[in-house]
């Protein structure tokens, strides 16, 4: 309950922030919100599902490309609905995750570092693929992705200006946050916690471990796909960097710094790291990466639960169940 209050407060502060930070930063913050959504998806699969996915940007990129291809009318010129694009992006990412996850988790399954390496390799493969897939823009990516067009009750509205776009994205992010939080507090959350801590103990209680793993992997991929789909409409641009190694690792750092076992901390981790990046890189240039690296190490060594999750947990008084 208190957890939800804090989250409401965070979203309220975010909603009020455009007044204080002005147009340019509101535009930046919109993109950070989308990164925050990606971070949430990684927190769900890694922190809650116990699946260390080192290539989360795969799903982000797949969602982005599907959205771009569909709304640019490259598949069917008359079918460019943004809604359809968003749904297809989520479904496409989820389906890809199901297929990949089946190979990863079926049978004895792969876990830990091996899983991380394979997902990382997959992200690299996809990045190479997109770099060379000329029909989809190749190295240059796809330009002129149209902004999201909202249709309701016959009226239509394009998310082009900064303010409406910001609030629309914030609404989606908050909605996803509360839906996932609700899901995690249900019986599904209990199953996930059990499967994260002792997957071997669940089968003899009647659980199909593969199905649960696949479900969380696909759900997380759908959220990442949604984030990617929104992202390409912000700049109107989809490129191979969205799908690959760098973004995957960055997302991992945001989530580790924020706190993987707390959705809100992971979300804020992305926003704060990106904000810090734009400020600090102006002051320190490339040395800023050093600062990020140090922050990452501090978080891993001293506060393994995350720089943000530790104080947030104190604030909410909630303690997550830990591995034993």
């Amino acid at each position: 309950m208190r957890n939800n209050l804090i989250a409401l407060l965070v979203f309220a502060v975010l909603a009020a922030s455009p007044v204080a930070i002005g147009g340019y930063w509101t535009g930046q913050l919109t993109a950070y919100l989308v990164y925050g959504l990606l971070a949430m998806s990684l927190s769900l699969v890694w922190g809650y599902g116990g699946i260390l996915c080192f290539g989360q940007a795969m799903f982000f990129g797949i969602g982005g490309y599907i959205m771009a291809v569909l709304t640019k009318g490259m598949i069917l010129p008359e079918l460019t609905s943004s809604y359809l694009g968003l749904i297809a992006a989520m479904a496409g990412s989820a389906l890809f995750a199901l297929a990949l996850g089946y190979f990863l988790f079926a049978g004895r399954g792969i876990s830990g570092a091996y899983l991380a390496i394979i997902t990382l390799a997959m992200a690299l493969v996809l990045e190479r693929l997109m770099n060379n897939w000329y029909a989809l823009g190749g190295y240059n990516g796809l330009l002129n992705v149209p902004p999201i067009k909202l249709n309701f009750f016959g009226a239509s509205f394009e998310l082009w200006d900064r303010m409406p776009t910001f609030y629309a994205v914030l609404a989606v992010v908050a909605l996803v946050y509360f839906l996932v939080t609700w899901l995690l507090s249900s019986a599904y959350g209990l199953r996930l916690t059990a499967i994260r801590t002792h997957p071997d103990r669940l089968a003899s209680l009647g659980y199909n471990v593969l199905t649960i793993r696949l479900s969380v992997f696909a759900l997380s991929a759908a959220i990442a796909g949604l984030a990617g789909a929104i992202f390409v409409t912000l700049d109107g641009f989809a490129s191979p960097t969205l799908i690959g190694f760098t973004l995957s690792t960055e997302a991992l750092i945001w989530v580790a710094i924020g706190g993987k076992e707390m959705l809100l901390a992971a979300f804020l981790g992305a926003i704060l790291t990106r904000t810090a990046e734009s400020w600090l890189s102006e002051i320190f240039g490339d040395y800023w990466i050093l600062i990020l690296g140090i922050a990452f190490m501090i978080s891993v060594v001293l506060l393994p639960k995350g720089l943000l999750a530790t104080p947030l947990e104190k604030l909410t008084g909630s303690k997550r169940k830990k591995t034993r």
Partner: protein
Amino acid sequence: MLEIENLAAGYGEALVLRDFSCRIAPGKVTALMGRNGMGKTTLMKTIMGLIRVKSGRIMFDGTAIEKLPTHHISRIGMGYVPQGREIFADFTVAENLRLSLLGHEGGNVLPIEQIYDWFPILKERAEQRAGTFSGGQQQILAIARALIGGPKMLLLDEPTEGIQPSIVHDIGAQLSRIARETGLSILIVEQNVDMVRTLADEVLFMENGAIQERCDIETLRQDDSLLHRYLSV
């Protein structure tokens, strides 16, 4: 109830069970005794599908289960209380039970009141973290967790290991009562002779991956030479 024929199973290349056969009667409590390393736990895990069968057959209540995945075996009525209890230490007692209930959703589950009636301590401490329980209490929880799924047969792997004697007797007496009342079949791996005497109807002695001898509990009560032969080091 459970018929095993010419079973071979083990870890990788190393076979622990070779040509193992036995029949467990329905509605009876059967104890499996033997020294460490004779394959008792391997047998339990193989029945549960946790270890892959190399060859042979396991029939449970008319179904061949030797190729089924573990969750499927659990859902057709095989309850399992593993060695070391394996409860979820950071879950509350109620959450541990709920987890098992959810796993058997849509099946023949028992009402939680029935469980609380059998084991009142679980009701008293429903909101306590299971990790703070004593060994005996954790064992009771592990048994309750298996029972709540409404199994036809219960596999118990060394339930008295590391538990104080007074609780051992209570658990034995309570399980015996439950088996009589519900007609539950139990296969128990046990080294504790008191537990076996309290609970079992029949005793199987296992050595080198095969059953060497079987006797009913009366025989064992009168003559403990079998115990010396198969248990003493």
